[in-house]
């Protein structure tokens, strides 16, 4: 059958959009990689929010809110397909009578094609990859990864853990860890020290959401009260060891320091997941505030390709509450484009959605200013492309050899040709090109994304032919 809408991702934005579209009696299929609804922010929310769960208490009220959304989503009547990996999205050719999208999915080793009139990408974000010496060592992982371990198995790092980076997530995780009895060796804050001076212009706007501000301040106060070792102005982090992490080294304005380490968790903010929109050649724009690309969207969440919508953090990093609002707005836009919602009603619904979104975004300019993407020099020996094991030195050499086109550098070095398709190296490669050619980062762009979006086996590809026959 041809669905009215295929939603990719069952996080806040995807679930909300599914509920809203179903309320307008549109047929909806939701494809998600995870085994249960919630996305990353509300991962495992159904299992963890069983009555009497201590974990649910410690994960906080915003996490528990996800349980209600997941419940509504389960009941909304959308065709929900967990454990489904989307590896290609195509638009039917110009000879088709009606516009239709084909979404290629792998589920349980079988490839299939889902057809839908509209596609909504609610695929969230990933943590910003920031290479440093030793970041490929076992023992080093992201704060987000550690939090996923907590949400999807109730697992805490063993022994004292180092947390290094900047942003709300490391603070939240440190706070959660402490409440659950985990040990923190120290918190290495990489945000520049002149917080107050930079933050001040954005403070009054952020006060519209004083609850979130108060919560952030409470996490920090809690960590201080617990006597946690905290270093600020941290730069030049290094993870050292033979076959795994053994010690870390860092610099502050006061000098170089070192400490033994078993687990190091890092985090430098989030970037939208843009691989599908890049591969579909949608227009993108560079956000200086968030130092990342995002798809260009109209007021209804539609990309520059008609019938393709984006909602949630994939449209720009704004957090879970904003993702719910964006899901609602995209559902309005989709209903309008399918002619089941009049222009007047759509505008009315949009105005309400815009207000909710604006409130949910109130603290964002402050957060973006307080926690900018790190700009420290990446030394030549640092691995940039984790898949192809290429160093910054190799990328720099290639960047200087010819034009400032990331595709040229990709061809010459293979950076971005591994299975991650440049999800880990793309931004760094672009930054090194911008530095080599002394041009603004926004003008460099990103290398072309070649399919598949996620690796499929040749056998799975062949199974598609059989499914079609």
């Amino acid at each position, binding site marked *: 059958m041809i669905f009215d809408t295929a939603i990719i991702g069952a996080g806040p934005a995807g679930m909300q959009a599914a509920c809203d579209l179903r309320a307008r009696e549109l047929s909806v299929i939701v494809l998600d990689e995870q085994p249960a609804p919630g996305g990353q922010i509300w991962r495992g929310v159904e299992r963890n929010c069983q009555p009497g769960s201590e974990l649910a208490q410690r994960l906080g009220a915003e996490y528990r809110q996800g349980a209600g959304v997941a419940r509504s989503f389960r009941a909304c009547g959308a065709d929900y397909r967990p454990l489904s990996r989307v590896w290609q999205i195509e638009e039917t050719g110009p000879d088709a009578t009606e516009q239709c999208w084909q979404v290629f999915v792998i589920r349980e080793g079988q490839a299939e094609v889902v057809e839908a009139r509209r596609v909504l990408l609610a695929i969230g974000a990933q943590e910003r990859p920031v290479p440093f010496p030793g970041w490929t060592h*076992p023992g*080093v*992982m992201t704060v987000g990864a550690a939090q996923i371990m907590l949400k999807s*198995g*109730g697992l*805490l790092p063993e022994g004292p853990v180092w947390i290094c980076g900047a942003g709300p997530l490391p603070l939240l995780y440190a706070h959660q860890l402490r409440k*659950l009895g985990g040990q923190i060796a120290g918190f290495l804050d990489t945000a520049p020290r002149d917080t107050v001076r930079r933050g001040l212009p954005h403070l009054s706007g952020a006060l519209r959401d004083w609850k979130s501000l108060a919560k952030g301040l409470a996490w920090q106060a809690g960590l201080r009260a617990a006597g946690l070792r905290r270093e600020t102005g941290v730069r030049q982090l290094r993870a050292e060891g033979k076959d795994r992490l053994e010690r870390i080294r860092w610099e502050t304005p006061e000098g170089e320091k070192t400490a033994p380490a078993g687990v190091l968790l890092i985090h430098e903010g989030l970037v939208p997941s843009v691989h599908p929109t890049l591969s579909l050649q949608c227009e993108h724009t560079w956000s200086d505030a968030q130092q990342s690309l995002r798809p260009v969207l109209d007021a209804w969440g539609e990309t520059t390709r008609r019938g393709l919508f984006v909602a949630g953090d994939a449209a720009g990093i704004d957090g879970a509450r904003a993702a719910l609002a964006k899901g609602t707005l995209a559902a309005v836009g989709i209903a309008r484009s399918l002619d089941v919602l009049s222009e007047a009603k759509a505008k009315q619904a949009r105005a309400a959605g815009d207000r909710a979104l604006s409130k949910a975004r109130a603290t964002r300019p402050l957060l973006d200013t307080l926690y900018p993407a790190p700009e420290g020099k990446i030394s030549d020996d640092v691995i940039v492309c984790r898949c192809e094991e290429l160093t910054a030195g190799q990328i720099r050499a290639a960047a200087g050899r010819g034009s400032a086109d990331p595709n040229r550098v990709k061809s010459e070095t293979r950076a971005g040709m591994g*299975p991650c398709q440049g*999800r880990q190296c793309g931004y760094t490669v672009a930054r090194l090109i911008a530095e080599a050619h002394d041009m603004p980062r926004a003008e460099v762009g990103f290398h072309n994304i070649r399919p598949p979006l996620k690796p499929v086996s040749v056998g799975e590809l062949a199974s598609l032919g059989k499914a079609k026959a």
Partner: protein
Amino acid sequence: MFRPLPDSSEGPTVTVFVEGQPVEAYVGETAASVLLRHLGTARTTSISESPRAPFCMMGCCFDCLAEIDGKGSTQSCLEPVRDGMTIARQMSARKVVAR
């Protein structure tokens, strides 16, 4: 590298086989998480053969590629544990076995 909360160790478990050894896994965790807890790594790279461990746990770093139920290069962080699942590290480049 990771240990269960008191809650989780009381929760439901399944038995999986990590490189032949039966181990208990918590319902809700992934094969990558089991690898981290028991071996600390998932693979060695195909170029320099250096060890790697799951890094992002959400399907975008591909450092958790492992052999799950005999299928090589599987993103182990996207595989929830199942009873009887076999999990093994993937060492170096894949080997081709002609039948």
